[in-house]
């Protein structure tokens, strides 16, 4: 219903409409690159994807065919090892930060985690190179996994911390009143209550390091063949995408798109599952 007041304020409603329109345009602009990237990755990646991509080793330029079986396994191995190292330490640290939040150690730990999360990943790469690769005198899967674990650690710790702190203190008090000790509470009450969120947080951290490339350049390096043990350098999808993109060969560009498709699929699936895990109990 139109009134005189509306007419008097038409200038302001016009401005409001313009602002709304501008924000819609901003959203459109933001989504253009996302859709463009996803479309290109899907289209070019599907075109280059074949059975042999998943089963065979890379072939030299010009031979055609070939795949990235070793890189796919390499990425899974790197991320798996990194998770084994980073997630338990991260969760333990996060619980400590939340349960003893007022202690000096917790405050220092939280600050360190925040700072560490902002350190560029390439710097973690050169540090692991200096500490592990130089000492062992070889590039190795283990060194790559360690670099990724360092990147996961603050993410997992801070997520656990934040989520553990959302657990109401009344639950802790109830358990204390029943005679439970502080760490029993941390594990049986806090961890259990916050576990969907923590699981989701871990998945997001895994998804995040799946795409990390820079720290692998001088740690896991690359390998044209299968790596025999964790002490050998390994190929990975991330590094293969980089190497193949920078090459001048069309074959290799096609393979890079296929690798990107596989990598994006892994990351997106992890993200969607994490979202699902997070929303699960709320929906129930």
């Amino acid at each position: 219903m139109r009134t005189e007041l509306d007419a008097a304020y038409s200038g302001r409603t016009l401005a409001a409409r313009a602002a709304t329109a501008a924000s819609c345009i901003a959203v459109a602009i933001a989504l253009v690159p996302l859709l463009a990237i996803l479309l290109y990755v899907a289209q070019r990646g599907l075109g280059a994807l074949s059975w042999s991509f998943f089963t065979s080793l890379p072939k030299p330029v010009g031979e055609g065919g070939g795949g990235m079986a070793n890189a796919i396994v390499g990425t899974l191995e790197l991320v798996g090892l990194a998770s084994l190292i980073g997630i338990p330490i991260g969760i333990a640290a996060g619980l400590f930060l939340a349960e003893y939040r007022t202690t000096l150690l917790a405050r220092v730990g939280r600050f360190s985690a925040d700072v560490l999360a902002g350190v560029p990943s390439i710097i973690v790469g050169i540090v692991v190179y200096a500490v592990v690769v130089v000492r062992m005198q070889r590039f190795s899967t283990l060194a790559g996994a360690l670099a990724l674990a360092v990147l996961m650690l603050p993410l997992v710790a801070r997520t656990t911390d934040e989520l553990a702190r959302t657990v109401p203190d009344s639950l802790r008090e109830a358990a204390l009143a029943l005679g439970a000790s502080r760490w029993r509470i941390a594990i049986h009450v806090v961890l259990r209550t916050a576990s969907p969120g923590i699981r989701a947080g871990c998945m997001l951290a895994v998804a995040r390091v799946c795409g990390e490339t820079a720290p692998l350049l001088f740690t896991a390096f690359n390998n044209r063949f299968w790596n025999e043990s964790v002490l050998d350098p390994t190929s990975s999808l991330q590094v293969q995408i980089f190497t193949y993109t920078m090459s001048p060969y069309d074959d290799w560009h096609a393979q890079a798109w296929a690798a990107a498709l596989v990598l994006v699929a892994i990351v997106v699936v992890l993200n969607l599952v994490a979202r699902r895990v997070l929303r699960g109990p709320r929906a129930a």
Partner: protein
Amino acid sequence: MNEPAALTDPPTSSATHAPRSIGEPSHALVDRSLVAVGGGAACIVGLVLVAVAVVVLEMALPSLRELGFGFVTGRHWDPVHGDFGALPFLFGTLVTSLVALLLAVPVALGVALFLTDLGPPLLRRPVAALVELLAAVPGVVYGLWAAIVLAPLLRTTVEPALEAHLGFLPMFRGPKVGVGLLCASVVLAVMILPTIASMSREVLRAVPAELREGGLALGATRWDVVRRIVLPHAKSGIFGAILLGFGRAVGETMAVAMVVGSRADITGSLFSPGYTMASVIANEFAEATSTLHVAALAEIGLLLFGVTLAFNVTARLLVSRVRGPEAALARVARPREESA
């Protein structure tokens, strides 16, 4: 401290009254050792950070000693002849990050406001999910897209158009090769957009609903509320979000390394190839043979570490200051838990 701190007793004083049977370790002992595990894990986080700083500093020592302050002012980078001047990298990082901010900030703020105040409520959740998806795509995939799709597009369409219309500015003139500072800036803008948008959204959300409702009740339009109430309230937090985006842009390595052109040069043109601090480490570190070359790259890493550290710490302080009122409100809302 802002957060409700009900549990204040020190770790060692936790006694347990649970009954225990003979042969089992005492609960107090288990408790103490588990606290030690947690505390140890928290220590590891701190130690890793210290180790990163110390190792990078140690690696950079030969360069710090030999090249001194001339390192950051030197304009020539020629490892083969032992010339190490890092200014082109500082320049490239600064230019690409600033241009990326210029491109990303208005769009990111628009998106954040869409998500909190201006957009139709039905669309907010899917748009938020898509923006988060944008953040999840790995940097190297952005690099692939930029190198194969974006760079040719810039070369054939965007750069000629920019030169035709804005060519009177020296930064829009020059060789049109596609890869270069402009291309790197555009990719960075796309990559930091979700960071800034989601941090700003969090900050905007923290503005108490009562303030918005008060404004609307007085007859303000949604835009009036945003302009007069929400934005002033969230100003420093949004500034923090922008700093955080800048920190990300400075540290981003792979996507930039793939499209920046990799030439250590300082020119006035955005079209020309350049180099950044992170991407020179990525490209040259594995091939550096002389001690001084490695040390010089480590010193660039040290500078990068310092810059990102400063930006991230400032940004977090600004963002957490804005989050403060919300935390305070939450405390007021449940005072019973606070009194324990």
